[in-house]
Structure formats: C-alpha cells, structure tokens
C-alpha cells in the first residue's frame, strides 16, 4: 500500500513544522537547503506520483552532503548544533524516500524527536507552545495512516479539511497525555548538569560582552527581549536614578576598544567599602547569557551561591549562565570605599599613547584652570549638556575617535559619552573607569516585579574621589536626562520605531508576566525544586530510587486508567453509535433544529429535510447509517459504527 496524496501532504506538513522549530537557531543556509529538498520532493510527488521515491543516485549524494555540510559549518559532527542539523537533515532525507505508511510512521516518530531537540535550544513559553502545537500534525498524520472507512472525499481537496478536522482529535490526544507528562515532569530524576553539555558561545543571545567599542551596544539597544527580572523584598523599587545594574568594569582602553580584564575573586569576608544605607534585598532571575557575569545594583554585600565578588565588587558566576538562573543579592546603594590600591590607581589612569591629542589637550587645559576634581567633572558635564546630542545613529568616527566625537560629531549615545568622559578624566589625572551593565528597568506593577530588557543596556563611568571612593558619573544623563529618568525607551523614542505604541507596550508587559511565570514554574524547575516539592509530602532527600518509584507508580496508575477507559469505551460499538448520534443531535440543535427527545430518527429526518434542503442528501446519508446500525441490525458492526462517527464529524449543515 502506498501513501495517498492526502497522507503524503500531511507528512510534508509534519516534517515542515519540525524543520520550522529549528529555524530560529540553525544557520539560515542549512534551513533553506533543507526546505528546498522538502519542497522539491513534494513537487516531484505531486506532479509525478508514479515515479515513486527519489532515486538512490539523488538520495545518496544528498545523504553524503549532510555530514559534509555539518562539518563545513561547525567543524565537527558532535554537539548540540551539529546533532540537530544531522537530525533535521535525516528527517528531510526520510521524506525523499517515503512512499509507504511504514515510512511515514518512522518519519513521525523521528519528527517528534527532532521537535524535542528544538527545546534544547530554547525552553521559552513560545517555543514550548510551538512544539506542543507542532505535535498536532504528527498525530493527525498517524490517524490518517490508520486504515479506515473511505469518506468518499477527493484526496486532493482533503488535506486542509483533514487538518482542520483532525485538530480537535489530535489536541484531545495531546491533552490526554498531559497527566503522564506532568508525572514525568515532577518525578523524572533531574540532572544537575544538562546532558548535552555546553553550547558554543556564538549561539543564543549575545547580551553584554566583555569589550566595548562605540557602536557595540547599538545592536543590543535594539533588542527588546528581557535580560533579567527583579523582585524586591521592599514593596517599591528604587527610584529610576538608582537603577544602575553593574555588570562589568572596564579599565583597559587601547584607543578604540574598552576591555574587561577578569579580576580575581575577593575571598575575604571583610568588605573594602562601608555601606552608608540600609541594604536593599532582591532576587534577580537572569535569562541565559552564556557568560559568567551577573548583574547587581551598585555594590552587593555578598555573593550569591555559586558566584563570587571580584575586586570591582561585581558578581561573577562560577559557570557560564546557560539556563534561566535565579539568585538573591543584597546591595548597598550608598557606600564609601576606603582605599584605592596602587595598581588600581595606575590602571585607572592609564591611556594609550598617541590617541586623541585634542582631548588630552583639553584635559590639560582644564587641569590647569580648575583646582578641584569636582570642577573638572562639572565642566565636562556642562560641556556635554551644552553642545552634545543623544542619538542612536551617530556618524562614523575616525582613528582618534574621542577627538572626532568631542570636537566634530558631538552626537552619540552612552558608549560614546562614558568612553570619552573616562578618557577625559584620566587625561586630567582623575582615576576613572567604564562600567557596563543595565540602567533602568520597567516596574511591572501588575506582576510586582521589574523587568530589565536588553535595550536597557548602558555604559557609564566611575571616578575615584578621595574620601568617597568610586563615584558614579553618568555623562549620558547630562546630555539626555530622560535616558536615566524615563528609561531607554523614552530617550530613544525618536530613533527607535521598533518599540511601538503605548498599548503595545502594556500588552508586552502583561505578556512578560506570563513569561516570568513560565520561567519560574517550568524552566527553573530543577533538582532542588524537585526536592523541595517532595519534601512537602514528607519525602526528604529524595533519591533517584524514590523518584523512580514515584514516576513508575504514577505512570502505571495513569496508563491503567487510560486503558480501562479505552476498554470501556470500545466494549460496545453500540455505545459509540449512541455517542455519535448524541453528537449529531447536538450539532443539529446548534444549527437550529433540535430533536424532540421522543422523536424517532425517521420523523426527525423528515423535519430536517425541510429545515436544511440544501444539505438534505448528506443528512439523509448520515441518518441512513444510523438507522442501519441501530435498528436494522441486532449487533452494530464496529467498522460501520466508526464510519458513522466519522460521517457525523464531517457533516456540514447549512
């Protein structure tokens, strides 16, 4: 038996959705090549079904090309991305030889695996939802592969109708598996480490990197996805001017690029600063960054578990952040450092030789004119305020980029300002450094948390003032105060059409609550949460064994229930006939012609003929099936009963 056109089309759709699930994270050319093979095979079969499978002399080179492409792209065949490309590719190749229902079944099984693999890349609500929906075509295809009573429908016209009709059934099947999935979700022993190892850093979101060049953040500012979410122990968040989420401190500047040099952990417990305000406690849920640094407001008083504080009092995780990661921090928003080590002072004053002579000259002039550091800072900020403008589309800069910026273009955004300001301070003999992180955050009052987006990425400066320690100076605020007070969205409004209107923003924030909940309940459910959950039921320190027992027992109970239900359901085909007839009655009642409960089928049909003259023939055929099953035979034939159920499901009234 060969696949008919309808089954083949469904197979194409099933494979297409599996391919689509991988489209966001695999190289475009590979996806395009696979889509091409898929489409070509579909066309070939649609035009010349008599040719059968794609001949071996086409399939063999394609099969060999697949690993070659993987090696060309990734350099090897192993790992998450190469493995996924191989899996998707094999699925598409299976399509080229699929001619029999057996092939289609194998392909569906494998497509489900490929869909699962897509979750290795992205476990967000959207992707999980997509994968769940993508299961529907697989199940619809499986059902279509079952031998069944012919519906007398033309195969070509039936693919879409099949899909539409199959969706409720398939959704029912998926929902039916949900309890089992829930048991597995709760009790499947969780691994501390993901099985598939570390993904390569070039994948996924970039986030903030450890170097900064003018223009480097622009791409990030266009990225509207959340960087992390914060819930404060206090009922209200700190004011906008205090929302500086420090991430990386950069000392080194080579003329074009600021670089973060990892500094050693501060292991001793004694702080080298004095907190001047009560600690502010909060929890951050960080989206995966593939990097090690964490973000915190100003100076964290201690490092969370699995992370340490470095000499600049920023937080560094011991491992790259591969998953949504929650951590708790207490921060001091006002503080005073005691001393600046000599090597630190040296670092904070060093400038590359031979760059930006005009800026150095200006610094020298100011140094001689003003006595106090404070006055120099004021002069610089006044200059920014008076002469500069904030834009996300700054003109290009030459070799002496700071000179060009300060004296020629005079427009730019946070990176330009913090970079030039730090340079200027150093040139004037004031220890200064660049800090990169996020500034701002949207307080989601509905959800009671703050969301900080990639577009809130920011760079500012810190200068050393004796007696105060490192003092934050944000030159961008001097140019564009709304950037700090209202957030990047307000400041970038003119340049940033992608943020959309106000209502879209509100909608986005509500959607963010859903995402946060998903992260909290599903994505972050790890071994620890599992233990905590079981502890509530008196299972302390759940071992693999007890988990396996819970999983096994739960599965057995559910499968038994399902089987009992299935057996009960199929015990008497007469029940199925009754059910289908009741369904038919409901549908006709919705169409405006309810059956009187004491009305026999013949009398009812008579009424329906007049009520729906245009569908009279179809209705008659359905009723003929019913009467034949229910009254013209003592024992309903199961196959005919199924056919009747299908006929009821496909009946179109009026």
């Amino acid at each position, binding site marked *: 038996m060969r696949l008919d056109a309808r089954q083949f089309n469904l197979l194409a759709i099933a494979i297409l959705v599996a391919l689509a699930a991988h489209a966001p994270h695999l190289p475009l050319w590979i996806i395009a090549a696979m889509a091409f093979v898929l489409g070509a095979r579909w066309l070939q079969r649609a035009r010349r079904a008599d040719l059968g499978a794609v001949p071996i002399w086409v399939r063999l080179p394609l099969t060999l090309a697949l690993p070659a492409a993987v090696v060309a792209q990734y350099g090897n065949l192993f790992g998450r991305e190469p493995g996924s490309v191989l899996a998707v590719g094999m699925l598409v190749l299976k399509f080229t030889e699929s001619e029999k229902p057996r092939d289609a079944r194998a392909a569906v099984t494998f497509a489900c695996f490929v869909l699962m693999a897509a979750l290795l890349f992205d476990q967000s609500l959207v992707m999980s939802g997509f994968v769940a929906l993508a299961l529907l075509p697989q199940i619809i295809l499986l059902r279509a592969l079952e031998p069944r009573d012919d519906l007398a429908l033309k195969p070509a016209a039936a693919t879409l109708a099949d899909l539409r009709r199959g969706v409720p059934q398939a959704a029912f099947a998926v929902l039916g598996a949900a309890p089992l999935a829930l048991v597995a979700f709760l009790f499947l022993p969780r691994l501390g480490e993901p099985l598939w190892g570390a993904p390569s850093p070039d994948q996924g979101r970039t986030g903030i990197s450890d170097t900064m060049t003018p223009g480097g953040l622009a791409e990030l500012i266009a990225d509207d996805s959340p960087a992390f979410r914060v819930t404060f122990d206090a009922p209200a968040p700190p004011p906008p001017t205090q929302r500086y989420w420090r991430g990386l401190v950069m000392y080194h500047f080579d003329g074009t690029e600021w670089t973060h040099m990892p500094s050693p952990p501060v292991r001793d417990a004694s702080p080298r600063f004095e907190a001047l305000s009560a600690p502010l406690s909060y929890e951050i849920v960080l989206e995966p960054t593939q990097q090690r640094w964490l973000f915190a407001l100003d100076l964290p008083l201690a490092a969370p578990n699995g992370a340490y504080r470095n000499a600049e009092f920023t937080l560094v995780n011991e491992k790259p952040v591969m998953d949504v990661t929650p951590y708790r921090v207490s921060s001091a928003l006002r503080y005073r450092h005691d001393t600046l080590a000599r090597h630190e002072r040296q670092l904070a004053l060093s400038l590359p030789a031979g760059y930006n002579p005009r800026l150095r000259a200006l610094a020298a002039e100011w140094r001689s004119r003003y006595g106090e550091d404070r006055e120099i800072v004021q002069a610089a900020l006044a200059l920014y305020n008076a002469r500069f403008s904030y834009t996300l589309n700054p003109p290009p800069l030459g070799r002496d980029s700071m000179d060009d910026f300060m004296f020629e273009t005079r427009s730019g955004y946070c990176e330009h300002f913090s970079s030039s300001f730090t340079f200027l301070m150093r040139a004037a003999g004031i220890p200064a450094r660049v800090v990169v992180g996020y500034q701002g955050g949207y307080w989601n009052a509905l959800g009671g948390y703050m969301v900080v987006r990639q577009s809130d990425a920011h760079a500012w400066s810190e200068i050393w003032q004796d007696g105060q320690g490192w003092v934050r100076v944000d030159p961008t605020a001097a140019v564009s105060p709304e950037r700090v007070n209202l957030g990047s969205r307000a400041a970038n409004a003119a340049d940033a059409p992608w943020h959309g209107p106000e209502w879209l923003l509100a909608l986005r924030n509500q959607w963010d609550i859903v995402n946060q909940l998903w992260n909290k309940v599903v994505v972050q459910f790890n071994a620890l949460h599992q233990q905590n959950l079981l502890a509530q039921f008196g299972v302390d320190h759940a071992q693999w064994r007890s988990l396996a027992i819970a999983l096994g027992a739960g599965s057995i109970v559910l499968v038994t229930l399902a089987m009992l239900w299935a057996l009960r359901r199929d015990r008497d085909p007469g029940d199925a006939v009754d059910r289908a007839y009741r369904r038919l009655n409901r549908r006709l009642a919705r169409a405006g012609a309810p059956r009187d*409960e*004491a009305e*026999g089928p*013949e009398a009812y049909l008579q009424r329906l003929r007049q009520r729906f003259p245009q569908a009279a023939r179809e209705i008659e055929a359905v009723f003929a099936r019913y009467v034949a099953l229910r*009254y*013209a035979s*003592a024992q309903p034939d199961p196959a005919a009963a199924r056919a009747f159920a299908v006929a009821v499901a496909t009946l179109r009234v009026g």
Partner: protein
Amino acid sequence: MTHASPDTAVTLDAALSTSLDRAVAQVNSVVLGKPAQIRLAFASILAGGHLLIEDLPGVGKTTLAHALAATLDLSFQRIQFTSDLLPSDIIGVSIFERDRNRFEFHPGPLFAQLLLADEINRATPKTQSALLEAMAEQQVTVDGRSHTLPAPFFVVATQNPLDLAGTYPLPDSQLDRFMLRISLDYPSREAERALLTAPDRQQLISTLAPCMDANQIVALRKHSASVLASPALIDYLQALIGATRAHPEIRVGLSPRAGIALLAAARAHAVLSGRGYCLPEDVQAVFVPVAGHRLTPAGHGSRDRETLARALLTDVAVR
C-alpha cells in the same frame, strides 16, 4: 420471501410487496382521507390481531370493513349485533338430522375468514363473550365438540361509544382481545367533498376485485413476525411499557400480552412502511391504538386513556 436470520433486517418478496401495496391503495380509494387508519387496519391483519373500530355511526366503519373484505379474497360474514342475539346465532347450532340419525353441526356466521361484528356493544355480555372466546382461541366448542375456525380468521368489530342506552359496553378485560382499537373521525373537507360528489361507496365496493388471497396473507403474517426488532428498539418498547406502569394517572399499565401485541403491531407497521426492521416510529404509530383501550386510568381527575397514551409517547425519550 427470503428466510432471514433473526439478526438482520428481512426483505419482503417483491410480488407479495406489490399485492400488499395494491391492496392498501385499493382500500384507500374507497375510504377517503384515512390512510393512517387503513394502515393500522392492515397492520392488524398482518400482525394476526383483531380490529375494533370505535366511532360515531356513519363515519365509514362499515365501509372500511366492507372495503377490506372486497380487497382481500376471504370468506366474509357480517353480523349485526342486537340485544336479542344469542350465542348460537353466531356460532351455529347442532341440529338432529333424521336421515343420518345424529346431531349435525351447522356453522353460524362466525365461520368466516373475515368477520364484521357490527355494533358489538348492543349484544348481551353472553353473546359478546362467545365471540371473544372464539377470537382468542380460533375455535368454538359446541356440544363437547371443537370446531376450528378458518384461517386466517380476522374480526373487525365496531362499536358506538355514545349510544349508551340499551348497550353493554365491552369490559376492559374483553377489550384486550382486540389488538388495535381505532377511530375514524370525520373526513377532511376534501375527502368529504369527494364522498359527496363521487358515486356511492357501496356501489364502488361492488366493483372492486380482490388483490390478496388467504395464502398471501398467511405469508405476510409469517414475514411480519420475522421483522427485526433491534435491541435498541426493544429498549424503547420496554421504556414505553414501563412508563405505563409507573405513570401516576394510570392504575393498571400494559400487560406482557399487551407488550407482545405492541411489538407485533409495530412489526406489521414496519412491513407496511416497506421495511424489514422496526423503527421507534412504528412503535409510536401503533402505540395509541394498542395501548389506548388497555390502560386503566387511576380514577376521577385522570385524563382519558387515549390522551394518557399520547402523553406517554411524548414523555418517553427515544435514545
């Protein structure tokens, strides 16, 4: 006629089916505008039951009986029941034959295949029960000797429900002998106009040719008994019977014998509808004629029997 297993619908032999259709059509051409009642009369014949027509004088009771007699090639007798009619007047008498030196039985008008018992409620209970016993047993016993009645034996009795003076209405237990009780009612306007303008009915009947003989009727009865009543149909039938027994306004519901009659009548109705299986509609079509005269209302304040039977039909759900 095909011989069918009890599990499947049966099919009727084409020739038999044609004769049945012709017979029904012919009676319809005489008794105008009463197809449902004629169908019920035929159902009664096919189911092997007797028919009681209860209605006012002059609405065509006798015409219907005559039309049936003319259409069916059966020996026909008519007995006009009166208060002085004796059992022997209908059964027959044994008379001493001198030449043979013994009593010889002279069969009465009862010995016919189709018997019209006109105004049955005018006769005394004694005479009534002689007829009804004969109907139940298909034979009569005179002077210790049994005489089998001809087969098929089909009684059409009429009675006038309003004419109470000097009548003996059939008791409930006797009514049970009739499988179906129907009433004819006034004709519709068009039917009445046709009656008024067309030739006399009696004249018309005299021109009719029989369409079905006794053998065919026997074959049809056999076929009717084999019509499929599916489990679902039996469910419905039992629900109906059960409802008659549970109804607060009914003192005595349908007996098992009534239930059997209901099923037999429904089967016959299915045959008349050209089907080899029963539908709930068949049961519904015969339910009031079968149950109407068999239900005993609870007492004063209850609705009359037919209304109750009709109410039951709308109360009991067809699944």
